[in-house]
C-alpha cells in the first residue's frame, strides 16, 4: 500500500479528515523548508504539499506567485526540491509528500529521470497543474512504473461525463479545485462544494480533498464536513510573508504559520463526523 493510501485509510478508521498544507519549496528561505515541513507535521499536517517554483505560475494568485518569485530568487530548482524531500525523509518515513508544480521544469528534466528521482527520494504523488488528462499520459506511465500517484484536478467547470473519465485514471486522491479562479481567491461556497462533491463521490471511491479558497479554521472546518481533506496554501504563505514584511524573523514567520495550521487542524477536527 502506498503512503497516501494508508494515510487516508488510517484517517478513515479514526474518523478524521486530512489537513494538507501547501508551501513553496525554498520560500522564505532555502534551508527553512525541511524544518518547516517537520513542524507542519508536528502541528497536525497529514500530508505535505510541496510547490515547485516556476517562473510563470499561471494558476496562482498574487500571494503564491510571490512565493514562487522568492524561491526562484533563492535559486531553487526542481532538483533542489527533490533534494528537500530526500532530507525530509531522513527523519520522517511515514508522512506522504505530494509535489505540485507546472509541466515545464518536469519536461526539462525528462519524464523518466524525474519519475526515477521521485521514487528515490520518497515523493508519493504529483500534481501538475497544466497537465490535464489529455496531456499527462506519458508522464503518468513513467510515474506508474515507480509507484507514484498522479493526482488529478477536478474543477467546478468539469462536466459529469468528464469526471467519470478523469477518476478512471486517477490514484492517490482527487484534488477538487473549489473555486473558479486562481489560488488565494476568496469566495468558497460550501453548499456548492457539497453538491459537487456528491457528483465526484458517485464516480469514485478515492478520497477527495478540496483546495483553493480555504484560509482559516472556519472554511477548513466547513470543507472537512463534506470532503476527505482540506488543502491550505495561500493563507500560510501570506502569514509568513506578512510577518517578514513587518520586520519579523523567519522563525517568527514559521511560528505564525504553525499557529494558523494548528487552528485549522482544530477547525477540521471539531467537525462531527458523518455530516
Amino acid at each position, binding site marked *: 500500500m502506498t503512503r497516501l493510501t494508508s494515510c487516508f485509510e488510517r484517517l478513515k478508521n479514526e474518523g478524521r479528515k486530512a489537513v494538507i498544507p501547501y508551501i513553496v519549496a525554498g520560500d522564505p528561505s532555502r534551508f527553512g523548508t525541511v524544518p518547516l515541513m517537520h513542524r507542519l507535521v508536528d502541528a497536525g499536517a497529514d500530508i505535505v504539499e510541496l510547490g515547485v517554483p516556476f517562473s*510563470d505560475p499561471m494558476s496562482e*494568485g498574487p500571494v503564491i*506567485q510571490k512565493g514562487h518569485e522568492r524561491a526562484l530568487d533563492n535559486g531553487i530548482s526542481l532538483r533542489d526540491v527533490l533534494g528537500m524531500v530526500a532530507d525530509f525523509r531522513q527523519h520522517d518515513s511515514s508522512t506522504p509528500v505530494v509535489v505540485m508544480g507546472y509541466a515545464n521544469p518536469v*519536461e526539462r528534466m525528462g519524464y523518466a529521470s524525474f519519475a526515477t528521482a521521485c521514487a528515490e527520494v520518497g515523493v508519493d504523488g504529483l500534481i501538475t*497543474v497544466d497537465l490535464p488528462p*489529455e496531456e499527462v499520459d506519458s508522464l503518468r506511465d513513467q510515474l506508474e512504473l515507480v509507484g507514484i500517484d498522479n493526482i488529478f*484536478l477536478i*474543477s467546478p467547470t468539469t*462536466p459529469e461525463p468528464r469526471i467519470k473519465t478523469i477518476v478512471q485514471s486517477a490514484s492517490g486522491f482527487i484534488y477538487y479545485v473549489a473555486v473558479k479562479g486562481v489560488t488565494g481567491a476568496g469566495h468558497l461556497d460550501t453548499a456548492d462544494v457539497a453538491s459537487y462533491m456528491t457528483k465526484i463521490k458517485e464516480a469514485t471511491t478515492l478520497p477527495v480533498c478540496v483546495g483553493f479558497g480555504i484560509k482559516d479554521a472556519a472554511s477548513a472546518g466547513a470543507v472537512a464536513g463534506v470532503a476527505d481533506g482540506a488543502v491550505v496554501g495561500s493563507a500560510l504563505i501570506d502569514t509568513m510573508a506578512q510577518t517578514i514584511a513587518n520586520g519579523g524573523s523567519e522563525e517568527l514567520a514559521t511560528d505564525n504559520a504553525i499557529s494558523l495550521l494548528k487552528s485549522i487542524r482544530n477547525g477540521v477536527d471539531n467537525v462531527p463526523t458523518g455530516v
Partner: protein
Amino acid sequence: MTEMRSPEFFASVPDPQGRFGPYGGKFVAETLMTALADLEALYRDLSKDPDFQREFDTDLAHYVGRPSPLYEAARISDEIGGARIFLKREDLNHTGAHKVNNTIGQALLAKHMGKKRVIAETGAGQHGVASATVAARLGLECHVFMGAEDVKRQALNVYRMKLLGAEVVPVTSGSRTLKDAMNEALRDWVTYVDSTFYIIGTVAGPHPYPMLVRDFQSVIGREARRQCLERNGRLPDALVACVGGGSNAIGLFHPFLPDEGVAMYGVEAGGHGVETGEHAAPLSAGTPGVLHGNRTYLMQDENGQILHTHSVSAGLDYPGVGPEHAWLKDIGRVQYVSANDDEALAAFHRWTRMEGIMPALETAHALAYAERLAADMSPEQHIVVNLSGRGDKDILTVAAIDGIEL
C-alpha cells in the same frame, strides 16, 4: 518527400488533439478545459458555415478595408539591385496592423457564444487596440492585459485603447512584458470563464487558438498568392515575415506551404544579438518546452524556468512561439532567422525615408532581413514581405533611442 508535402499534408495539422507533430496541445488547468472544448466545437461548426464565412468576409472588406494592396518597393529594390521586394500592406488595415483580421474573427465567435466580456493580452498594443476596437463596435466590455514595461514604451496605444473604452491592466509580475500579460489574461479567464471570451492575439496558447488564429490570418496569404499571380503571372520566390508569436508570419505562409518553389523566412528578434543571450529568438536559440498552454520552442534555462527576453520591439518580446512554427522549423519547410535591434532600427529609418512607409518596429525586423536576402538574389526574383503594421505607435521609442525629446 514531395508526396509528403502535399496540401493534405499541411492540412493535416493540427490533429484532433491540437498537435502539430510533437508541438501544440492543451496544457492548461482543468478549469479551462471545458471552455476550450466548447470553443473548439463552436469553431468546428462555424468554420464550415457559409453564413459565418460571409459575415467574416464582409467585415474584412468593409470594416478592415481588405484586400490589402501588394506594393512593389521599387526604389529600395533598385538600390539593392537584387530581388524585387513586394510588400503586403497589412499596415493599411483599420487599426494599423494585421492583428485586426484575427480580432474580427474571434469577436464573431464571442458574439455567437453570447459572451459579454472579452479580454486580451498585448505586447505592442496592436492586438489590444484591435480587440478594444471590435469590442467597442459590438458593445462588449473589454479588459486588456499589458506588461508594465510595454505600457511605458507603447504609451500611444495605451491611450488609444482607453479612448476606445477598454480597461488597460498593467502587469507588474515577472519580466513585465508580453509573457506576463498572457499569464495574467489566463488568470483572469480562469476566474471569469463563464462570462468571458479570451481573444488571444497570436498563434500561441492552447488548442484551438493556434488553429483558429491561423485560419483567420490566412486571408493575408490567400490574397498575396492571388495578387502575385495576377500581377506577376507567377508565385514569388521567397516570403519574409517577422515572428513574435507568429500570427502575421503564419497568415502569409500558410496558403503557400504546398508551393515548393516558394522559400520562407521567419525573422525573430535578435535583440542585442542572439550570441549575447539578450534576444527573443526561441526558434533560433531555444529548446522545446511547455508554456501558455502549448508545447513549443522556448527560451528557458537548464531547470525549465522561462528566461527574460529582450527586443526593442514590444510585439516580438516573447520567449515562446506558435507551435505550428516549431513544427515547420523541424520539418525544414520554413527557415527561421533573426535581425537585431540595430538592424531593425536602421530598416525603420531607411524604409521611412526611401519608400515613405513607416513600418512598425516588429515589421522592421522582416524588412531588415529582406534587404539582406534580396541582395543575394537576382532581379528576376521576387520577395513578398508581410508589412505587418505601421510604425506610428513606435515614434516615441525611436525618438528616445535617437536622443530626441518630443
